[in-house]
Every structure is written in structure tokens, then in C-alpha cells.
């Protein structure tokens, strides 16, 4: 079974054109991975598809780093 982090890394790498290795729990989407606010919105939609769940806008606003996303998914995935 793939870990959540691996799947998140793959989605991010595919979208932002960075290597999977460069995506760590600490990576900040905007400061470290070169994303802008539209990229983050698109990424959230990709995570929703990948993990078959809905991420409310209020949660999306809190997602600054990869760790924030992984933490949210761990808590909310069944």
C-alpha cells in the first residue's frame, strides 16, 4: 500500500513539474514549490479526485504546506 505522502508527492510533482523527492512534509506550496494561489486551488481539486473526498474551502485556506494536506487527509480519510 502506498502511503498518503507518496500519493500527495506524485500529484504535486505532476502538477507543478517538480521532482517527487523535492516535495517534503515541510514544503510550503507557495514559498518552496513555486505555486501561486490558482495552483493551490487546482491542487486541492486534484487531491479531492485522488482521495475521493471533498475538502471544504475553510480547510483549503489553512493548507500552506504539504504536511498540512497530509495531516488533513490522515484525519478525514476512511
Amino acid at each position: 500500500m502506498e502511503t498518503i505522502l507518496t500519493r500527495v508527492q506524485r500529484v504535486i510533482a505532476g502538477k507543478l513539474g517538480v521532482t517527487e523527492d523535492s516535495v517534503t512534509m515541510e514544503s510550503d506550496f507557495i514559498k518552496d514549490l513555486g505555486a501561486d494561489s490558482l495552483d493551490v486551488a487546482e491542487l486541492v481539486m486534484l487531491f479531492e479526485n485522488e482521495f475521493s473526498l471533498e475538502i471544504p474551502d475553510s480547510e483549503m485556506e489553512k493548507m500552506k504546506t504539504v504536511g498540512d494536506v497530509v495531516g488533513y487527509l490522515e484525519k478525514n480519510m476512511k
Partner: protein
Amino acid sequence: MKLLDQKVALVTGAAQGIGRSIALKFAENGADVIFTDIREDERSQGLMAELEAKGVRAAFFAADASSLEQTKEVCNAVTEKFGRLDVLVNNAGITRDMLLLRMTAEDWERVIRLNLTSVFNYTKVFSSVMMRQRSGSIINMASIVGVNGNAGQANYAASKAGIIGFTKSVAKELGSRNIRSNAIAPGFIETAMTKQLSEEVIEHWKQEIPLRRPGTPDDVAKLALFLASDLSEYITGQVICCDGGLAL
């Protein structure tokens, strides 16, 4: 090389009038054309045949532009069949003219939903396709009435002014993805929509037009062609009047 070679375009509410002329103009210039209207009938079948006769790929969907659900279905079918969308023309629109005193909430809501919510639906759904492509041109059919207002058209004018604000916001929001968003503001164009007006009103309008003639759907289609093509690649967030000078 034609202006729209290799582009895929979609026009809403195109079974007749301005939308129809735009669909044909795009096909003549090499684009594959998808069009929608509220129902399938001789008009849509006729246009389908004319488009195909121009040697491009064409598709028609009977869909209510004011329904987000139906818009998503159209988008799924379009991406499956064509794989992309380069040009979106939000053209579907209606009027329900009457003095504010007599206007019911239903008259108001219907026009807002059909003219403005439909633009939200199509732009929302198809902009994600354009974002992935990193290119696109969105053309919204406003009206000079949305700029200047008009007695007896408070609902219609509000919907068209809303389209203008929406157009400019989308231009700012999606510009970084090379997606352009512009509005066309037609003046007095001879179509079924303006045939409903009385002889007297029509004469009055004609006198007011500096170029001294009403516009034709083809006049609007030529502007749409410019905005759809790469000739306008540095133009976004604009409202361009196509009105013979009427709004001046």
C-alpha cells in the same frame, strides 16, 4: 492557414441569430465548432449540416445554459470528443422587457439566471479545461444596455452589466494562465430578439445610430472572430461595442 485552424470553439444558444452567425464564421475560419441551444429542432439540425459542409468537426448539445449540471455534462462530452476547448462564447440570452413597476420577481430572476448564471456556469466549468491547456479565449455577449442602462430593461441591463464585471474579474483571475476574457456589447442588431420591438421603436433606434443602419449578426461575428483568434492575443478584460456608434 486560416485564423482559427486547429482551434476548438463552443457557442451557447447558437441555433439562431448572433450565435448562429458566430458558429458559421468560426467554421469558415477553420475551427471545430460545438454549439448548444435549449432544444433540438430544425434550426439546430440545419446549422449542424451547414457546419459539417464547411469541412470542420461539429457537435450540437441540447442543454439549458442556466443549469450547472447540464453544463458539466456538455463539458464531459466535449472533452471526450474534442480533447480541448480554445474558445468559449457565452451567447445564450433572453429578454423580458417591462417597466420596473410591472416587473415580477419571476421576470427578474429568470433573466438573471438565464443571462448571467449561464455565463458563470460555462466559464466555471470550461475554464478548468483552459487552465490545463494554459490558453483560451472567453467571449461574453453583453450589450450596450449593460453599459448605459435602458428604460424597460432593468432586469436585462442588470444581467448584462453583471456580465461585464464578471468578464473583467475573470480576465484578472486567469490572465496568468494565458486565458483571455472579453465582452462584446452589441447595439441594435437585427435578429428575432429585436423583431419583437415595434416599428416605431426600431425607426427611432436607427435614427440614433451614427452609421445609420442597424447591425447584422455577421457584424458581431466578425468581432467575435477577432477576439477568438490570436490577432487579439494581447487584449483582455475589454468591453468592445459593436453598435455603429450607438452608445456614444
